[in-house]
């Protein structure tokens, strides 16, 4: 690639992202990087995420400085090898900038997947669909306690490259109705059954995270024929313990100072907990009915400080393929939940990873899920 100049641009994490802040550079100008090596930390209104180098080369320039807020696609750095002269680099930067600013308008108008509201029984669920509607089986993403569909922002676009992917807010969460019924996984699963019908889907690959994992299992028990495969990420229902400091703290803490350490339980790398992330959760909890709903769920699912359901029998009875992904340093649901599962279940444990591998190890999780789904469909 002698002389090739590669732009490093503001990435797009998640469908709603229109701009991001270059939080910090991980690599200095002049340093050589490998493809996939972390170049910088990018902060969005939802999360902070490492940005991996698109190619091997020398990081020749920091075009953007730490702290700068830039639109998606804007040039933040330049990769090249020694063969490119400084003049070449300057010319490249100028050309890129000219083209980028002229192209900005048209891109802003391009069609983005939009949330829509689907009525599932009495409830209104906020749903975000993406990806091309092939003949293949779509993927349904179920988030966990206190989460919402944006928990999948680093996964949904990647999975949607080959499949239709549906993320939604559980009742009591995000922008869905704040009514949670008895707050049990069975009740949530029944609602999802109605959602699947409302979306006119025959079968779905189900990916469930945390409490969403338990809900996925209950869905498999309830509508086994509709579930093509199960991917369970740090799921509830396979072990007994639950970090009640997280559950209780999530419900009770109402200021940034008190909530931030609680959110810290979710990840191994605590620097991922940003102001914006905490602020979004505070804003969510201010919505009418949210705290009441969370309390109901906690009371039903985690009373006495234990998980109120054991779903291993459901997993064992499920006839489709199952994959379990778990962060080894999960501080909320211990990775021991992945022990002793049937041999047919694919288990991947991620070292140095907390309760949210889909965030902390996004690209690895995306690869694992894609490969698993490919394999499931090949059968």
């Amino acid at each position, binding site marked *: 690639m002698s002389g090739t100049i590669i732009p490093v641009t503001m990435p797009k994490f998640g469908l709603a992202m229109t701009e991001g802040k270059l939080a910090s550079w991980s690599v200095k100008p002049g340093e050589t990087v490998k493809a996939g090596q972390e170049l910088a930390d990018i902060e969005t209104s939802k999360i902070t995420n490492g940005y991996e180098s698109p190619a091997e080369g020398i990081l020749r320039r920091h075009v953007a400085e730490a*702290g700068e807020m830039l639109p998606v696609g804007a040039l933040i750095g330049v990769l090249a090898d020694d063969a490119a002269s400084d003049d070449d680099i300057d010319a490249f930067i100028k050309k890129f900038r000219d083209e980028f600013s002229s192209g900005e308008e048209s891109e802003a108008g391009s069609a983005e997947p939009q949330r829509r509201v689907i009525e599932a029984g009495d409830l209104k669920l906020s749903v975000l669909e993406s990806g091309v509607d092939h003949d293949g089986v779509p993927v349904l993403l179920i988030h966990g306690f206190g989460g919402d569909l944006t928990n999948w922002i680093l996964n949904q676009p990647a999975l949607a490259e080959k499949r239709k992917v549906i993320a939604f807010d559980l009742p009591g969460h995000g*922008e869905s109705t*704040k009514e949670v019924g008895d707050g049990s996984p069975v009740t949530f699963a029944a609602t999802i059954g109605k959602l699947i019908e409302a979306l006119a889907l025959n079968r779905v690959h189900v990916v469930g995270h945390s409490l969403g994992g338990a809900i996925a299992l209950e869905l498999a028990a309830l509508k086994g024929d509709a579930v093509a495969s199960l991917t369970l990420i740090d799921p509830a229902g396979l072990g007994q313990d639950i970090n009640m400091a997280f559950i209780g703290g999530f419900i009770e803490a109402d200021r*940034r100072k008190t909530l931030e350490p609680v959110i810290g339980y979710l990840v191994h790398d605590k620097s991922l907990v940003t*102001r914006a992330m905490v602020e979004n959760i505070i*804003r969510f909890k201010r*919505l*009418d009915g949210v705290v009441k709903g969370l309390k109901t769920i906690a009371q039903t699912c985690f009373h006495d400080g234990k998980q109120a359901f054991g779903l291993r029998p459901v997993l064992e009875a499920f006839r489709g393929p199952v994959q379990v992904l778990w962060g080894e340093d999960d501080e909320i649901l211990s990775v021991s939940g992945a022990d002793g599962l049937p041999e047919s279940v694919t288990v991947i444990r991620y070292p140095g990873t907390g309760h949210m591998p889909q965030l902390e190890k996004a690209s690895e999780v995306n690869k694992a899920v894609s490969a698993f789904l490919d394999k499931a469909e090949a059968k």
Partner: protein
Amino acid sequence: MSKKSFRQAINEALRQEMRRDPRVILMGEDVAGGRGGTSGVKDAWGGVLGVTKGLLTEFGEDRVLDTPISEASYIGAAAGAAATGLRPVAELMFVDFVGCCLDQIMNQAAKFRYMFGGKARTPLVIRAMYGAGFNAAAQHSQALYPLFTHIPGLKVVVPSSPYEAKGLLIEAIRDDDPVIFLENKVMYDDEEDVPDDPYTIPFGEANLTREGDDVTIVAFGRMVKFANEAADRLAKDGISCTVIDPRTTSPLDTGTILDCVTDTGRLVIVDESSPRCNLATDVAALVAEEAFDALKAPIRRVCPPHTPVPFATVLENLYVPSVEKIEAAVRAVASYRVKEEA
């Protein structure tokens, strides 16, 4: 979640609360407008700047009450209705008109609970526009929140953005005390993401819109926006600021202010109200009394001059604290060094 203007956020808060609770009623001069006109058009204005538009259609004339231009009677009526079972939201249009009904607010609504020995509840909200920047001159532009903050028994809210306005107004309507809710009229078209669901933001909890190490800026209402802009500019020069939006001037989140000043050691206060006995002096006194040892530089206040609000644009622009003035004040305190003894 969708982008909503400050005006829409307030309208939505009123609409959702009126749907939730039939005791919530609206009253004020031209909150609908058009009654008694010759065209027969109802909801002609929906408030002088259109904030309450459409509420008459949904809730009818029993709950959206146009009043005569008669502030003493209807603000007093709102207090009386609040004490007898309704939850009125009375609009005073321009806060400057409080001159016509201060008794009903200061001597009646604010005092009931205390002077009746804790037996009264007065769940009253008075909404009013404040602020300069509209060429509305001396009688339609004042930032009178210090006046209300001074009166025990009142709560005073000065929202700084559409998101803040909706959550704080719903909180105000559900609150059992009299609340003065002041809207900066220059901000009505400001937009940001605002949840569609109803939500509340508690009173007395400041919001940190920026967090930094060098200087704490306390700003109120529209000045929060200016302070954020100044902080972003200063960040490029390596001066990092904490910006505090107290949200409510009564109750005031003194704890957060003191914590932040203790961290940064430097304080700038931005207040659009007249400089004598305003919130800036109040916060300065608080910090001087409670965090004197933390201070590394004198406190600076960025306020208008002690004049009525002028009419001409050029004068009005000079009157309102600007981003530039905030920036200059922050630079001054950031670079301040204690003089060595000779």
